[in-house]
């Protein structure tokens, strides 16, 4: 085990836990929404970090004339990049949905603090 080599994982774990804390315990709906967005960012970082190749690496776009097997031994992981593209788009859709609902909650209740919204029974 090597702490320095795993430092990115540890930092990402802290970021993800902070976001999960904010979603669960913060009372403000807008803050919860921001935390959801940042949690997606944290996991995106985890993917990209895992797909990185140290040393003399190149982006996953084949330069003209390069041999595929040489390219495969040089470039970084395209699969991880793919997952992140998908997740960013999905994150925006989540934000749009939650923004719409939050604004409507504010119009109905005049507040977006979940502590103060106690219309329904538990």
């Amino acid at each position: 085990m090597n702490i320095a080599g795993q430092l990115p994982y540890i930092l990402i774990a802290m970021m993800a836990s902070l976001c999960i804390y904010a979603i669960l315990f913060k009372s403000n709906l807008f803050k919860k929404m921001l935390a959801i967005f940042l949690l997606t960012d944290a996991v995106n970082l985890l993917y990209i970090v895992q797909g990185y190749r140290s040393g003399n690496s190149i982006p996953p776009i084949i330069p003209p004339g390069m041999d595929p097997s040489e390219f495969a031994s040089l470039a970084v992981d395209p699969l991880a990049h793919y997952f992140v593209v998908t997740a960013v788009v999905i994150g925006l859709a989540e934000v749009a949905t939650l923004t719409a609902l939050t604004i409507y909650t504010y119009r109905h209740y005049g507040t977006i603090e979940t502590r103060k919204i106690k219309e329904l029974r538990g």
Partner: protein
Amino acid sequence: MSLKDSIIGISFVALMTAILIYAFLGYPEVGFVRPLGEFYLYNTFNFNEQGWWSASPNAVTGVLWDYRGYDTLYETMVFYVGIVAIALFFEKESSLRRTSGMTVIVRATTKLVFVFILTSAMAITIFSVKTPGGGFQGGSIMAIAYIAIIIALSRGFLPELRMDLSKAHLIKIFGLILIFSLTVIPVAYSLASGTVAYALQNQPKPWSEFGYPTFLGLYSLSGGMVIPIQVGELVHVGMGFTIMFLILTEREGKKELGGKRS
């Protein structure tokens, strides 16, 4: 924030971090590519292994619309749900009225910049098989052109560019129809010919003969169906963001809500 909240917060974050770090301690050090990634890199533009290729030099684009295209199709639909969210909650019967009072120079400059941004969005999309980019990136940039006009000038400038809400909806759905028809054409081929072909199949394979044509002679155009489907994505995403911002920046009337404010 009270003391009790702080203690709960710090202990929760510490606990959660400890659990995650415990999981990550068994992970390998950062800095190597897993074999599946190398498989995509090796095969994506390999003329010697044409049964396994996606004909796209950009491996991310190849994974995006060929190897895992079905994921991306539904990711597009998730984005569509996001547009529906805004449209369902805020769309009202309102028309965009043309604004007046801007000088000819402002109009001309804006149109010029607008055309420039639109062209670059188009380029990012079409050349995504060669360079970084793609339908989503291009669509976002196209939307930024519209959003900049909405925020910096006014919503009323959009009719000047022959754009309004229902037209944006129609163009967006046109993009979706393009994506959808490219998805079902292999299935329709399979039903018509009685052979096996799979949804969203791009290139012919030894076990399944259907394939979209690939143009490799024209230097930059390749990837079979990847480019047209990216154009569909560009239109869908660009118009989707435009619709969202058109609806959201609308001035709020006083009497719009039946419910009372408490």
